[in-house]
């Protein structure tokens, strides 16, 4: 998608973030049917249809410039949102290469990369960056490689080292998260890190996911969708900043839910990294207000039904307890009871 950037929209204070009609049509709805339960919904990260969020390895959309600015604001206040343990340096270079190569190939109008041996030249036009550096020599970049490149990418990134038959969360850039903290989780194993998720452990979701990921292949990335909801289009719903966003949940009424309540969808991608044999886990966040969502009649019906019938443990875990009724009430007039077509396409 040849997006027109909206560099001045905000994810805090006046919350001026909005989706254009084009952005609404390509929104990655995570519900293929009128009900939701956990599953190991992993699929190959193959190119999707032109214009879709999965057309390319990393989706750059109309919010790119604004999201990079939001990330810089978070990092200025809380530098520990980026961390990498010392043994993760080779994986940092792997990530930098993956992101630079992908963006330059997929969005040549915005990014370019030229490589002559270890001498690399990176140009990021939307952010007005022109950087020459030596691949493998961190002293030639203004920041550590993972820090450097993920400040120029949408979505969070976690790098997992693979050893002892487990995946260890040991580097990352996490500023657009749904109520979890890299600073708290760094150094944890895969199951420790996912400890708080209800029901999924009993369903052995993490046993199967871990086994699958340990054998993730180079050149065969995978993806899945996850979701929750957020009041206001706020990217940084971190535990660190809970006092700023937690109380918002008490503001929601059946009258204002259409504008306040946002469906928050994570497009999660997983890539095996070549030099380090680590795995990078990309968590790209998409936000859409119920009012924007309801411009697609099928989606309004479906999200109404999913929310209405959601398992109680998921209501609580996703933090919806305070405002789910209001959201359901706001969506109810859009649900005439008509059946929805299978799949997530708008109609």
């Amino acid at each position, binding site marked *: 998608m040849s997006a027109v950037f909206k560099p001045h929209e905000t994810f805090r204070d006046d919350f001026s973030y909005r989706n254009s009609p084009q952005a609404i049509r390509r929104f990655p709805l995570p519900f293929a049917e009128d009900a939701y339960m956990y599953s190991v919904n992993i699929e190959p990260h193959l190119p999707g249809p032109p214009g879709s969020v999965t057309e390319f390895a990393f989706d750059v959309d109309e919010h790119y410039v604004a999201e990079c600015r939001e990330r810089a604001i978070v990092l200025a206040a809380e530098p520990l949102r980026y961390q990498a343990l010392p043994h993760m340096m080779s994986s940092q270079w792997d990530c930098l290469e993956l992101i630079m190569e992908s963006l330059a190939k997929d969005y040549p109008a915005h990014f370019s990369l030229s490589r002559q041996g270890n001498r690399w030249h990176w140009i990021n036009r939307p952010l007005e960056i022109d950087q020459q550096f030596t691949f493998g020599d961190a002293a030639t970049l203004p920041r550590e490689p993972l820090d450097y490149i993920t400040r120029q990418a949408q979505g969070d990134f976690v790098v997992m080292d693979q050893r002892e038959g487990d995946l260890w969360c040991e580097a990352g850039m996490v500023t657009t998260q749904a109520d979890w903290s890299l600073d708290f989780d760094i150094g944890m194993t895969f199951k420790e890190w996912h400890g708080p998720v209800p029901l999924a452990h009993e369903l052995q979701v993490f046993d199967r996911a871990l086994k699958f990921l340990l054998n993730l292949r180079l*050149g065969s990335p995978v993806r899945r969708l996850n979701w929750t909801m957020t009041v206001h289009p706020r990217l940084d719903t971190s535990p660190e900043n809970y006092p700023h966003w937690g109380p918002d949940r008490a503001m929601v009424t059946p009258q204002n839910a259409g504008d306040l309540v946002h469906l928050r969808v994570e497009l999660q991608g997983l890539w095996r990294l*070549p030099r380090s*044999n680590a795995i990078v886990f990309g968590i790209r966040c998409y936000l859409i207000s119920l009012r924007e969502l309801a411009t697609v009649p099928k989606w309004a019906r479906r999200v109404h039904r999913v929310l209405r019938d959601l398992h109680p443990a998921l209501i609580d875990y996703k933090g919806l307890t305070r405002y789910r009724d209001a959201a359901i009430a706001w969506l109810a007039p859009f649900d005439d009871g008509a059946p929805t077509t299978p799949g997530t396409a708008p109609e």
Partner: protein
Amino acid sequence: MNDAQTIAVEVVGIEQVTPLIKHFKLAPVGGGLLPVFSGGSHIIVVMQAKDRVHKNPYSLLGSPSQLTTYEIGVRRMEESRGGSHFMHDAVKLGSRLEIAHPVNLFGLDKIARKHVLIAGGIGITPILAQLEDLHGGGVPYELHYSVRSAEHAAFLERLRRREGARLHIYYDSDGQLIPFEPLLAAQPLGTHVYVCGPAGMIKHVIGTAQASGWPDSHIHWEQFSAPPVGDAFEVFLARSKISVHVPPDQSLLESIEAAGVEVPYLCRGGVCGFCHTRVLELDGELMHNDHFLSNADKANAKNIMPCVSRARCKRLVLDL
């Protein structure tokens, strides 16, 4: 499972490095660079023989930063089902092969304080690439390499030149044995040991390390089993609803693939667990040859790794 993503390569170098081992260099057809990899990785080489397809795992032994070619070492197996003989006899300079992307099941531990690498014979191949990853890394390491005799010491000159005093070589012909007990007893805390070689050597290193108090997490080994030959048998694939004949010199996985049924796999050597298949019915016994299933899993006969394991049975039904 990745046949859709194989890379076409051309053989651009062949050297007989010992009486039994040939060293091949593979370059991408049409030039360019091969994917970056990490030390300890292997590739699956797909060989189109006259009457069948061989898919064998071989460790990458070259430098992970030298990507114009991949290097592999192939030992001629005495009881070969054909793959190693094909590489030795049919593959010439200019031959075309298909390879899958590298997979690493034998990676170096990145938080180790020291690495002790132990190789026997052809087991030197993954360790050669691990050594490349260790160069300049600042973590101490040493290599213990055991061979039958001087003429069987593959890649010894390369190792002498690069490793100097870190290399310890042992010749069976001179009665020299790696002193496993004192070697493993004397290592500082935080040391990791890596062993690749004959089954007996691997078993001995694991046992000695455990007896010396090493945690299992610090003991690493890799052994690709070639699928052994065995009696012919029949298998019924329940979901595909077809019967497949498994001849003596073909593996269960190869026979299933030849019948047109795809099974996910990574290593084809009984290590990774990816081709894990459920056994639905069995009248007879399974001949487990993998390193993945636990002894309990092997005993209950509900699971099989078709890449290396077989059956001696009247009836076998798999969930495929």
